[in-house]
């Protein structure tokens, strides 16, 4: 029979104060299979560990049980101790007689009885442990970043600058995301494009970064360190190497469609460049708008292109890549205007959303930085800003707070005042959330220096009347009805996960929270890890965030990814599920309960992918014949632990 050694720690008086450690030691000495049992004042101390090593060698122990503090503290310590004495680390188990016993009980007799049971339980477990070696996996030292917004850009640069190859995949023709559309950023009011474009250029020039715009991730398989990805490169019909940006093509293109970059405030051609500083700096032929590729259909752009950059025969390409880690930064979109009909958004030209207002303020915007109403190009003298449009509205819209609206609305009001000195800005708000460095001061400045008028309350009705946008609301502080004849209304729309995020989550097998944002592994302790190991989250894809937070999380995600990529090999805990093929009938119930898709059906029996398995054991409890069991915590071990726990 296996020889087990038991070592009881006094932890000074932390344990010995309530547990009769001598009695525990003598009781355990009588327990079957126990070849050695002793107590010591501090087992984790060097002398304590030496006792263990000595005993293992002299008494030829096969197993070690240390009855001490919680395994979360010293399990590793004592497993290494056992290892140094030539035992497999998994032949050491901890009995937690401090946190779960001495610290929570006063009655010495009862606490001692319990400590004895807990220690016996650990003995019964450890003597049935298998010696296990960590599962070692090779690592592909390359990362995939999905999404070319500020988060994706930051993560890519951090990875690349640490010397790892990066594939940055962006769905639209240019990177930059929503940040590139912004005019200024709060609370510093520095120019968004001025601070972003250098990073965009760095990305495009970086030798370690392979930028794939106008591309989408099609399929992801594999596991941490070894993902296989399929990326669809949509045809732009323009050869970037040949294109010299002469812009002749757009002049002849007969098609006019709303310009996404200006959120429909302007139009663009079927062949277009999203914005002057676009990266990559090239044109894209939007086939969904183009009358057709056959020269008979139109073909004007090709005719005028002297560089012969336009190639109608360009075909979609599928690129297959292998990467070791994936960072998802798929970003956000604004809440769908169709759902906001009550505020007349999309119905009245002068009711805008925040991004449109950004474009109006932007020097590169449709009005070259002058704030003019879309309807009649007049300068608005009274502007109403409304916060929490679609946010914090569980009945009709989103229950959550979109977090950044308070701040960008202040910014908008301020920018407006800076453009239109004699204008009046009203802000309807529920309350003002200005947590963040310099944020509160920013709000004060708006109110005190720029005379922005805050009205606490909700807007009940918005409608157009003789050239004005009438806003009815209630000031909940004064209780008075408010009626503003505004020239323009700006809605701080809720942030939603970007369109296609759900589809993407499915491809990556990532969990989503109830609002459709990507779920982190743990809300507090693992905020940048996804539930799938090797995949990380950055930016607004995970939850509404402002730029500094998105950047911080991106760098965090990059650091997490680097922690994987910098390894020669990865090591995975070997306490994984194991199938008894003689008992397995292939009902595959375990396959459907496995949270990690670690189990699959192969000719009538199931098999476990040890790399994917996290050892949770749900499969084992689901299996009607316990044909699948987690190593070192098997039903047999638990059965025996139950027995001794009940004095058997």
């Amino acid at each position: 029979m296996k020889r087990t050694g038991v070592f009881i720690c006094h932890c000074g008086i932390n344990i010995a104060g309530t547990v009769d450690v001598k009695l525990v030691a003598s009781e355990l000495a009588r327990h079957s299979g126990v070849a050695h049992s002793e107590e010591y004042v501090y087992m984790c101390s060097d002398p304590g560990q030496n006792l263990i090593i000595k005993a293992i060698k002299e008494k030829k122990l096969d197993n070690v049980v240390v009855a001490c503090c919680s395994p979360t503290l010293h399990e590793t310590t004592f497993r290494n101790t056992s290892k140094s004495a030539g035992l497999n680390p998994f032949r050491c188990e901890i009995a937690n007689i401090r946190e779960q016993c001495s610290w929570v009980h006063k009655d010495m007799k009862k606490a001692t009885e319990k400590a004895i049971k807990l220690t016996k339980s650990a003995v019964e477990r450890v003597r049935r442990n298998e010696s296990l070696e960590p599962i070692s996996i090779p690592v592909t030292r390359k990362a995939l970043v999905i999404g070319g917004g500020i988060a994706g850009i930051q993560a890519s640069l951090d990875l690349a600058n640490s010397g790892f190859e990066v594939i940055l995949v962006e769905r639209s023709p240019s990177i930059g995301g929503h940040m590139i559309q912004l005019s200024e950023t709060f609370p510093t009011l520095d120019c968004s494009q001025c601070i972003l474009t250098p990073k965009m250029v760095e990305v495009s020039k970086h030798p370690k970064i392979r930028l794939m715009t106008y591309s989408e991730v099609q399929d992801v398989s594999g596991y941490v360190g070894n993902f296989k990805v399929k990326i669809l490169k949509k045809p732009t019909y323009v050869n970037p190497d040949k294109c010299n940006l002469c812009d002749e093509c757009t002049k002849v293109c007969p098609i006019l469609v709303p310009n996404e970059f200006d959120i429909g405030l302007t139009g663009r051609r079927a062949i277009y460049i999203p914005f002057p500083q676009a990266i990559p700096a090239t044109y894209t032929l939007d086939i969904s708008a183009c009358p057709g590729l056959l020269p008979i259909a139109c073909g004007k752009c090709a005719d005028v292109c002297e560089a012969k950059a336009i190639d109608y025969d360009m075909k979609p390409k599928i690129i297959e890549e292998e990467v070791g880690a994936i960072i998802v930064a798929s970003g956000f979109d604004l809440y769908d205007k169709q759902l906001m009909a009550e505020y007349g958004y999309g119905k009245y030209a002068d009711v805008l959303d925040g991004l449109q207002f950004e474009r109006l303020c932007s020097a590169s915007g449709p009005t070259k930085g002058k704030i003019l109403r879309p309807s009649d190009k007049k300068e608005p003298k009274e502007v109403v800003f409304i916060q929490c449009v679609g946010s914090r509205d569980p009945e009709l819209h989103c229950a959550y707070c979109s977090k950044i609206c308070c701040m960008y609305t202040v910014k908008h009001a301020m920018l407006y005042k800076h453009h239109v000195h004699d204008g009046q800005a009203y802000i309807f708000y529920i309350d003002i959330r200005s947590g963040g460095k310099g944020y509160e001061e920013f709000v004060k400045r708006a109110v005190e220096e720029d005379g922005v008028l805050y009205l606490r309350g909700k807007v009940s009705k918005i409608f157009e009347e003789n050239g004005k946008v009438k806003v009815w609301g209630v000031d909940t502080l004064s209780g008075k009805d408010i009626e503003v004849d505004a020239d323009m209304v700006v809605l701080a729309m809720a942030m939603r996960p970007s369109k296609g995020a759900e589809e993407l989550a499915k491809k990556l097998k990532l969990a989503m929270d109830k609002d459709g944002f990507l779920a982190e592994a743990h809300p507090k302790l693992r905020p940048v890890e996804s539930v799938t190991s090797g995949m990380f989250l950055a930016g607004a894809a995970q939850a509404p965030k402002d730029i500094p937070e998105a950047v911080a999380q991106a760098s965090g995600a990059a650091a997490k990814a680097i922690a994987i990529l910098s390894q020669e090999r990865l090591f995975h805990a070997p306490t994984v599920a194991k199938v008894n093929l003689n008992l397995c009938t292939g009902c595959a119930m375990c396959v459907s309960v496995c949270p990690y898709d670690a189990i699959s059906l192969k000719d009538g029996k199931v098999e476990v992918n040890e790399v994917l398995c996290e050892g949770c054991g749900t499969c084992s409890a689901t299996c009607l014949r316990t044909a699948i069991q987690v190593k070192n915590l098997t039903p047999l071990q638990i059965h025996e632990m139950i027995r001794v726990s009940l004095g058997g």
Partner: protein
Amino acid sequence: MAKLEELKNEVKRILKEGKVKYAIGYERDTNGLLPKPAFIKKTEEADKLIWEPTCVYNLSRFLVDEKRKMAKEKNPDQRPIGLIIKGCDSRAVVVLLQEKFIKRSDVYLIGVSCENSGVVDERKLQKKLKGKKAEKIEFGEKENFVVTTSEGKIEIPASEILAERCLECKASVPVISDVLLGEKTKRKADNPFKSLERVESMSAEERWAFWKAELDKCIRCYACRSVCPMCYCDECVADTINFAVTADTTAEEKAQKIKWLEKSPVASENFVYHMVRAIHLAGRCIDCGECERVCPLDIPLRFLNKYLEKEAQELFGYEPGFDPEQPSLVACFKDEDPQDFIR
């Protein structure tokens, strides 16, 4: 009502065409009222077949033996087995498909509709006949059974001698089949859990007394598990050998095989056995009632399995045996699953 001739002809046809390796149905026993399972290999044997209200067995049970047999053979005959199934039996087949124990191509299903009757409960019948010996029972007109006794024929309303499970039937017509004999007049019991009220109405202590008395009787002949199509585990937790011995099984492992329960037929161990069986059948038992029929001690096992069937339906909206594609009861969940019992 499914015509016996159609039944025979169909079996003959599939045997003649070599569609199936053999067919399983019912044949008259030389003595006693209940038929025997008939294993028909040659077309001429098909004339033995009968279809009467005494055809109680859930023949899908025999798929388990066939599967075991095939596992042993070098190159087994891959043709399907012709299986005669009632509504309840068909639901068992669905569960076996759902659990991938069999493939659809393993069986050729000859469905027979029970329509507005079902099968008899021999115990009820004996009471009804007060000592008279029934020799034969046939489906009669308008929900009556015609019973031939030593003293001639009598008509008895089916409802009076039907098996309890038939009175609570959820599928009087097979839910899956390759051919279906008999009219497809679906009948659904207004309360498929009526019989449970008897036990549910008891107080906790009465229920304890009830089950204690019943399970005390158990002699662990395991007929309930042996007759159950869902108890197809090669080794049952109730067996003393409950792990498969392989070349690398150590002596220590053998010595330490898990004894979830002792072989002793005492209340405590009997409870473990029957509770494990009940929980393992939750969401799988389709109430063919065989376990209760075969119990030599008349332990009302349906009350156990039926109760969990009811709870699964009420708590999780789960009904087994209708859709082979649906995930198993305990292999899925809904966010809104009840949790009021959790602290």
